[in-house]
């Protein structure tokens, strides 16, 4: 029986594992942390339908319970070696395991906001990332730096995306809608707080996104200002003073806010980088390079090596799931070919 290894137990990896397992292919899922779906677990509600993320986590975890699926938590794949017809995986630096096909689903990490020091993350208490905001929304309490109810919250888009200086020229795709989603969630918790989103341009590409954007303005009274925040400083009372330019009015502006939420972008995760380097399929910005973006988007230029999900480029959850499913199909075809020969 042909065996498949899947590196990474996120939406794409789990979905691919489940499809393959149902087709009778034995699958081993390697997850470096002790728990699967760690990025998804950080979220509160999911756009565009505001579904609570634990629901999705439960469903995904259920899919992993199939007979043909072995999940190995705490297994970090450090090296992949091509052995002529199969791949040898070096697990945790010592264990060598052989598989006929490997699916890379190593995912993303968020941009380290402290690299943009001018925004003061890690220096001022009132500056937080979108991840921390998710946690606050999840816990239902959103205090400012002094523990009080914030008067004004600013969301800043494109932190570590579309930013030449930090080396990430690409768009992270999900932050625009995430900010709108978070602002709506915050409004539900804090009805009186002034909420402003600073953006370059809003990319409402997905189903229901544009409507969310409109509702955010009309129903929830969220302000949108086109302009990037150039620097943040602290005021004497622990608030954050931001400097920006309203590029629609063409005027520089200064404002004090209680919380500045940095919408951090997506970068290739450490695992993606390690695996990419090991098999020489590292593309731009450390993401995995696939064969062709149209027809061979799950194939890499190495035989038996496939990729799915946000290890290839920033991707939303639903896109990742679809990509995992498509990867499973491609892998089955590959395995069938192997058996014929």
């Amino acid at each position: 029986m042909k065996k498949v290894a899947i590196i990474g137990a996120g939406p794409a990896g789990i979905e691919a594992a489940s499809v393959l397992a149902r087709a009778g292919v034995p699958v081993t899922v390697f997850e470096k942390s002790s728990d699967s779906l760690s990025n998804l677990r950080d979220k509160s509600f999911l756009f565009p339908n505001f579904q609570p993320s634990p629901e999705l986590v439960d469903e995904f975890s259920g899919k992993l319970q199939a007979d043909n699926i072995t999940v190995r938590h705490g297994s970090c794949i450090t090296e992949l070696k091509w052995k002529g017809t199969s791949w040898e995986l070096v697990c945790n630096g010592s264990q060598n395991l052989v598989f006929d096909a490997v699916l890379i689903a190593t995912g993303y990490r968020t941009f380290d906001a402290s690299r943009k020091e001018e925004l003061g993350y890690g220096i001022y208490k009132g500056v937080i990332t979108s991840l921390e905001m998710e946690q606050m929304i999840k816990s239902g309490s959103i205090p400012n730096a002094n523990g009080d109810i914030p008067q004004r919250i600013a969301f800043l888009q494109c932190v570590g995306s579309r930013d030449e200086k930090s080396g990430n020229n690409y768009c992270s795709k999900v932050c625009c809608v995430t900010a709108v989603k978070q602002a709506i969630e915050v409004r539900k918790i804090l009805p009186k707080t002034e909420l402003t989103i600073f953006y370059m341009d809003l990319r409402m590409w997905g189903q229901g996104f544009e409507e969310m954007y409109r509702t955010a303005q009309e129903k929830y009274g969220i302000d949108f200002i086109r302009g990037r925040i150039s620097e943040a400083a602290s005021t004497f009372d622990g608030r954050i003073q931001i400097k920006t330019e309203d590029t629609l009015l063409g005027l520089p502006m200064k404002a004090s806010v209680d919380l500045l939420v940095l919408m951090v972008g997506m970068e290739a995760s450490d695992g993606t980088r390690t695996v990419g380097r090991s098999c020489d399929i590292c593309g731009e910005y450390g993401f995995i390079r696939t064969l062709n973006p149209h027809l061979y988007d799950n194939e890499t230029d190495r035989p038996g090596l496939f990729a799915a999900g946000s290890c290839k480029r920033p991707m939303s959850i639903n896109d990742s799931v679809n990509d995992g499913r498509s990867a499973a199909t491609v892998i089955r075809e590959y395995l069938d070919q192997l058996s014929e020969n």
Partner: protein
Amino acid sequence: MKISIIPYSAFVIPFLIGVVIMAVTCIIKYIRWIRMFDAAQRDVIRHNWFSWKTIPALWEMFREGLLHFRIIRKNAVLGIMHQAFALGWALLIVVGAIQSKNAIACMNQEQSITQLNTLIEQNGWYSFDKDKNIILNKRITYDEAGNKVHLHYYRPFYAAIFYNYFIHKEPASFRKAQAYADLMDGLLLYVFLGLTLALAKRLWSKSVGVRRKASHNLVDRVTKLSLWMIFPLRLISESITSSLYGNGGFLTKYLGSFLSPDIFQYFELVSWLSYSVVLAIFFISMPFTRYMHIFTELLLIWFRKIGMKESTRPTGYTRFELNACSRCGVCIEGCPIDKELDNHRIQAVYLIRGLRAHRREAKMKIIADNCLMCDRCVNDCPVGIDISSIRRMTRSKGSLDTIGNYSYIGTPRPFNAIGRIAYFGGCMSHLTPGITQAMQKIFEAADQKYWYMDRDRSICCGRPLRQQGFLNQADDLMCKNTEMIERSGAMMLVTSCPICYRSFKEEYNLKIPVMHHTEYIDLLLRQGKLNLKRDKRTVSYHDPCELGRGCGIYEQPRNVLNSVTTVRKIKEQKEESICCGFNLGNAVISIEEQTKIRDAAVRSLTAKPVDAIVTACPMCKKSFQHATDRYPVQDIAEVVAANLIKQDE
């Protein structure tokens, strides 16, 4: 009877013409440039022409004009090449002059008629009777009256240049004749060493340790060829003469022994004539080519050492600087734009060449704009040409420079800071709040009263504008800041940004001391006002361009760091530190290109294992922060602030 005798042959005429044209052209040029000096530069001449600065000036003229110490320190082989040409040739002239002076003095003493007759018959000397104004040129024994004649030998300056031709046999009383001849041959060999290295550099520059040599235009190349031919022709001519008469030193005698006098007697004059013609070609073209540097660099060193500086617009001093460039190419060696971006068309040597030749303005602006202003070439230039100032006055933005752009700023709010330290973070430090926060902690820990003058409202120091060529606009900002600082009554200015620091120190005329925070923390440590604990890390320190090469602050940051951590020495440090790439000087290269330069700097800083990269400039810090998540990047102030021992602990 008195007979005067002078050495002369028609072949010296080209040489004489060459010397005259060179001298006249140089003098005219120098007078024109001196007349172009501005008031401040004239003042310098008036006050410092002869002062205590004369001695160091003379020493540097000797050291850099002849010995070429600075080039030797950069690249020993290249330096020896330059030294061999300069010192070797100069000594050939000086020793040759002494040699001919001694020989002719002896001849005058000996009053030997036989010697005289040999000279006239063989060597083309002319004898003439000054009183009767006639050329004699015949065998002379005694005059009509039977009195012994009195001989007087003249020594024209070219006697030294064509010594072997004019003196086949030195007078017997010139005892050290052979020693001088051997010494002259030795010196010629020394020049040949330079010539060999120059050839090696021409054919394969890496053999003399030059990564990339300057490319020259046709006129320069022809002149260089004439320079290279001078010395071989001299040797050939001397050898031929030696084959005929057996004179000369060890080398010419040896070579002459291979030449058959029967054949080579016909070539003697031709050979000496070619030597003279080649000299003439070199001298005539010299004022119009890079070889103008030979005399100009000496004058430039003199002017610079007595305190002359570039102004904001081209002056006579600029002309001296442009002409003092020998196009040695040392400025290309270290240039990060060449090294990392492989652009070898914009370096100082080409800017200077273009400006000297009055090349099209638009083209010059393109060259002038593409520079990080990291001052690496200023630091490396063997004659100390202030390339950055020249670049600034050539830059393209200069034409957009208008007055009154910042009138909206209005009068700065007055603040009473009498007796306090004014702290100016600078625009860049506002983008790295870690630094300003650390500085505030340090002020408080050392119990210093300070005024954070640009906490809320800040006016730029003006230097970024100045670097781009907006000189008037920079002056506008400078006035506002000066007013604010002076009216506050602060006793000292501390800044966190080396760009501001250099501006306040060099461009502003503040009456209070100005310190960069590295200097200031060093001072606090020496005064014992800060208690620091050591951390166990090993760090590498990056010298920011403006702080290191710009202001010469190398030791203070190292002192501070050494009292907290261990500083690892890196290869490219201090004067040779690589620019972080994000210097405000260059507004034309792309971020990708800046990134390449930055990556080179990071490679250099992390060549040996370190725990962190430390720098002293917000610009460099930001640059490195984006480069690497493997190493923490910190400012010195942050390192110090993190290791403060609080008084109450």
